């Protein structure tokens, strides 16, 4: 038994894990390329310099937050509001951090710091799938962190290259093309599949309506107020369902 396990462990080298991570990430990257390019076009359109637009991709490295950030910069929102909005938009990563933490618990701090930087939606999605499969099988890889590194670096380089391409193109696209509309469309494409149950629909509807009502709030605070109110309404609906005896597992509506 021990011999078999050792042999199988040997098959999982850092290199093979790294490459497997890259491979798993590739199909997702097909969708990331246009998304990154749209970001680049918008960032330039919003008045960011080429350097700042590029730097946001490598410093922040979070698609949705970058879209929202660019939009708020364009609208002239104060820095504190933009930073706080970034916090809210990226809060979902706490879930990723929590669910991936047990698999990385034995790593030294340097690995943890590096992998945390690479923990995007896309890298998380393929990695957690793999880790959960592995958890269910008797064979454990001692190098599984290399898998996340491969997926994360594949995502990172694709994001940098595609946003750079968008930034380059952005300078050439005339404003009559209304490319800024792609922000709303991108968010529609991401939001609709998230409407899985009554609490999420309630959260979305109330956040949207409050965002319209609160549009005139100073410092562009309307977005935050609307998002937090929408979450509160969603939780309230959730609590009512629970008290009415509906079963609901946390995480269902992700």
């Amino acid at each position, binding site marked *: 038994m021990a011999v078999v396990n050792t042999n199988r462990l040997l098959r999982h080298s850092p290199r093979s894990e790294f490459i497997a991570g890259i491979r798993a990430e590739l199909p997702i990257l097909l969708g990331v390329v246009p998304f990154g390019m749209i970001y680049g076009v918008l960032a330039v359109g919003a008045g960011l310099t080429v350097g700042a637009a590029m730097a946001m991709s490598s410093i922040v490295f979070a698609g949705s937050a970058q879209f929202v950030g660019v939009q708020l910069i364009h609208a002239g929102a104060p820095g504190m509001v*933009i930073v706080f909005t*970034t916090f809210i938009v990226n809060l979902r990563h706490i879930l990723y*951090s*929590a669910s991936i933490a047990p698999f990385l618990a034995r790593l030294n701090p340097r690995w943890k710091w590096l992998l945390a930087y690479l923990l995007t939606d896309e890298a998380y999605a393929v990695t957690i799938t793999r880790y959960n499969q592995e958890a269910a099988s008797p064979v454990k890889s001692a190098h599984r962190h290399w898998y996340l590194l491969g997926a994360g670096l594949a995502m990172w380089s694709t994001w940098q290259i595609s946003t750079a391409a968008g930034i380059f193109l952005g300078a050439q696209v005339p404003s009559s093309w209304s490319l800024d509309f792609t922000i709303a469309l991108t968010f529609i494409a991401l939001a609709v599949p998230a409407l899985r149950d009554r609490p999420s629909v309630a959260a979305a509807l109330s*956040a949207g309506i409050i*965002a319209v009502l609160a549009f005139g709030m100073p410092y562009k605070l309307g977005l935050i107020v609307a998002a937090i109110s*929408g979450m509160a309404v969603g939780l309230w609906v959730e609590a009512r369902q629970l008290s009415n005896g509906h079963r609901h597992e946390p995480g269902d509506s992700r």
Partner: protein
Amino acid sequence: MNVWLLLICMGLVTYAIRLSLIVLIGRVNLPPIIQWALCLVPPAVLSAIIFPELLMPGGTLDLSFGNLRLLAGALAAAVAWRTRNVLLTIGVGMVALWVLQVVIPH
């Protein structure tokens, strides 16, 4: 705020969230209410952005058929609902807006 300082703050906030539980705790179970609240972040934040973009393109509420972004956005939402395909949603919505801009005088 200086744009570079802003970028660094945005980056730090994002990184701190991603790092938080990886470093703090080996195995953690967030209380259910926190998990539910986190699950509601995407629909709440996204629609708080979408609604004003579609309903008040000029900065004021416009529920008329002259609001091309609302029409194109509604079509895109229908495509998203049926296909769950991000690229197709963006493509259909964008083409719809261009066609409407040509067809309907504004």
